[in-house]
């Protein structure tokens, strides 16, 4: 098992050293040596002109189970409302289903869920709905048992869910029970129509590297998808579809975890995930008190306040405002970054915003690489002027 260099074929040319995204190959005594940190990604196999590198596998890709059909979207709810990520997944799911000539179904759990027919208007052919008081608190043990049961019964070939706190917590458990592959936090999904493979692309290494991943032999192919990367489509209220009400199966199902209390985060005046405009502050603000500048600008523009990880780490603003790889991914029409240098992990969470404005005193800050407009200057001078100018404009 593992990767091998055929020392007879290896010429020590070093092409593989250059190609390795993980930097684990070196030339030792004129031959390529691959260290144990190798992830077996296979990039070096393609660049080796001498066919000297190979990855041994015990038995490659057993035949796929062809009984699996259709694409499923897990449609998350909270307090009886669908989440916007549901519509985003349906928009992409519909395109993939059309390409594969497959059926698109939504699976929706919760209690007293409103607007279920919107799932059809947004592209679902079928909706499997379990609306039951037992599911009101979104307890993951219960979600797990119901979802696994439905998948085993109906055998979809692809299952996608939002990479939300709930999705990233319970979907891996579904995959573990089904002993199938799951790709986390994808930012793009395509399909290979011939092999009926879901091509799942996601950032790794804090957004430094993109990887495309497939699940060859096991079914269903499962992925969680980062919210805000796919755009939702306008609903078609004429679309026909079928809502299938499924009973909550109580048999042998109790939740081991119990929700005692929920404390809502009240610091966010406007939720950053839903905001059209976001004003984001970073380390350049210098101290917690200076966030009031961001709030003032946000108030004038009707915007939400975001932040870089640095500002959250300093304790200047709660985590719920953090934008980036380990925070929230946002895609507003306008993103204004103030005193944010633009670390890769921050860019991963905001670079798809329609228009990006960067205000920073360092002309070499990476944020200017992704920004639409840049102001090189002192934010303590620029932001108050901007607030003033916008106030004047409103009058």
């Amino acid at each position, binding site marked *: 098992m593992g990767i091998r260099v055929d020392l007879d074929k290896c010429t020590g040319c070093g092409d593989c050293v250059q190609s390795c995204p993980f930097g684990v190959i070196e030339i030792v005594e004129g031959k390529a040596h691959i260290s144990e940190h190798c992830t077996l990604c296979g990039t070096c196999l393609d660049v080796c002109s001498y066919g000297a590198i190979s990855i041994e596998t015990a038995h490659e890709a057993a035949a796929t189970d062809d009984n699996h059909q259709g694409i499923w979207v897990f449609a998350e709810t909270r307090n009886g409302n669908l989440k916007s990520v549901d519509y985003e997944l349906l928009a992409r799911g519909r395109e993939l289903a059309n390409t594969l000539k497959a059926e698109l179904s939504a699976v929706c759990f919760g209690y007293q869920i409103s607007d279920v027919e919107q799932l059809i208007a947004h592209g679902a052919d079928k909706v499997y709905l379990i609306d039951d008081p037992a599911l009101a608190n979104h307890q993951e043990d219960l979600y797990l048992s119901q979802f696994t049961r439905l998948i085993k019964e109906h055998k979809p070939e692809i299952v996608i869910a939002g990479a939300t706190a709930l999705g990233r917590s319970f979907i*891996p458990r579904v*995959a573990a029970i089904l002993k*199938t592959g799951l790709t986390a*936090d994808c930012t793009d999904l395509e399909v290979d129509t011939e092999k009926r493979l879901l091509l799942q692309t996601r950032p790794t290494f804090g957004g*430094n*590297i993109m990887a495309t991943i497939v699940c060859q*032999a096991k079914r269903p192919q499962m992925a969680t998808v980062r919210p805000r990367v796919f755009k939702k489509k306008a609903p078609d209220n004429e679309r026909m579809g079928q809502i299938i009400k499924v009973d909550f199966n109580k048999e042998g199902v109790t939740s081991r975890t119990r*929700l005692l209390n929920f404390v809502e985060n009240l610091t966010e005046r406007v939720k950053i995930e839903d905001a059209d405009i976001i004003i984001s502050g970073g380390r350049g603000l210098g101290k917690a008190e200076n966030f009031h500048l961001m709030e003032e600008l946000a108030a004038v523009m009707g915007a939400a306040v975001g932040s870089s990880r640095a500002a959250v780490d300093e304790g200047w603003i709660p985590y719920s405002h953090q934008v980036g790889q380990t925070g929230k991914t946002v895609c507003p029409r306008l993103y204004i970054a103030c005193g944010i240098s633009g670390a890769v992990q921050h860019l991963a969470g905001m670079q798809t915003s329609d228009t990006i404005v960067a205000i920073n005193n360092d002309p070499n800050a990476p944020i200017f690489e992704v920004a*639409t407009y840049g102001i*090189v200057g002192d934010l303590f001078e620029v932001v108050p002027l901007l607030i003033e100018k916008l106030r004047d404009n409103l009058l």
Partner: protein
Amino acid sequence: MDIIVCLKQVPGTTQVKIDPQTNTLVRQGIKNITNPFDTYALEAAIRLKEQYGGKVTAISMGPPQADEMLREAISLGADEAILLSDRAFAGADTLATSYTLARAITKIEKYDLIICGRQTIDGDTGQVGPELAEMLSLPFVAYVSKIEEINNGQMRVQRMIEEGYEVIEAPLPAVISVVKEINVPRLPSLRGITRAKSAVIPAWGAKELDADQDRVGLAGSATRVIKIFFPQRGKRAEILQGSPQSQVASLVTKLRENGLI
């Protein structure tokens, strides 16, 4: 209270830059570190031991070099450490990794709580915690930001979700994943460093774990990476010139032209 902490050794990627000439990662000066999110898991375990007594065991699946990371865990306060290392484990995805960890934990036998970091900074999947819980048939709580109390075989924890936080109660044994808000990890003590030097860290391979060869490493992985590439960055910003006043004036004009204000 016996606690198992799952650790992973990762490249310290915060220093990683892309060389614009070759479009590859600049590798100089990249050291291997303990996955930062796992350091909070270890600290949480040590604090629980200090409060409730018991033992902390650190485990890691990785190459032989991960031994140095496990010694660091001992210097910080872990009582024991076990390295899961075997050529057969290479190329594992989260499914194969969680299976391997689950085999080791089953072999350890005695445990009340298993703590993982929310995700690693190299893979960023956050899937090993929940998959591990399922393979051990244990309750799981993700994104724990506070362990409020452990009493009568029950834990009460706070977990972060998008809208705020939840207070959740679950019976032990259980698996949790923790976020950085949970604590500030300590530094190693001198006594700890001495202890770490002489500690015996067993290395368990597939044989010791009595693991099914088809479920570990590349063979046990359901997913494969088929392509690796670097993210496309957009065009460089249009830098607005002039005095702060005129910079702001042209910004407002541009935003208005684009219908953004």
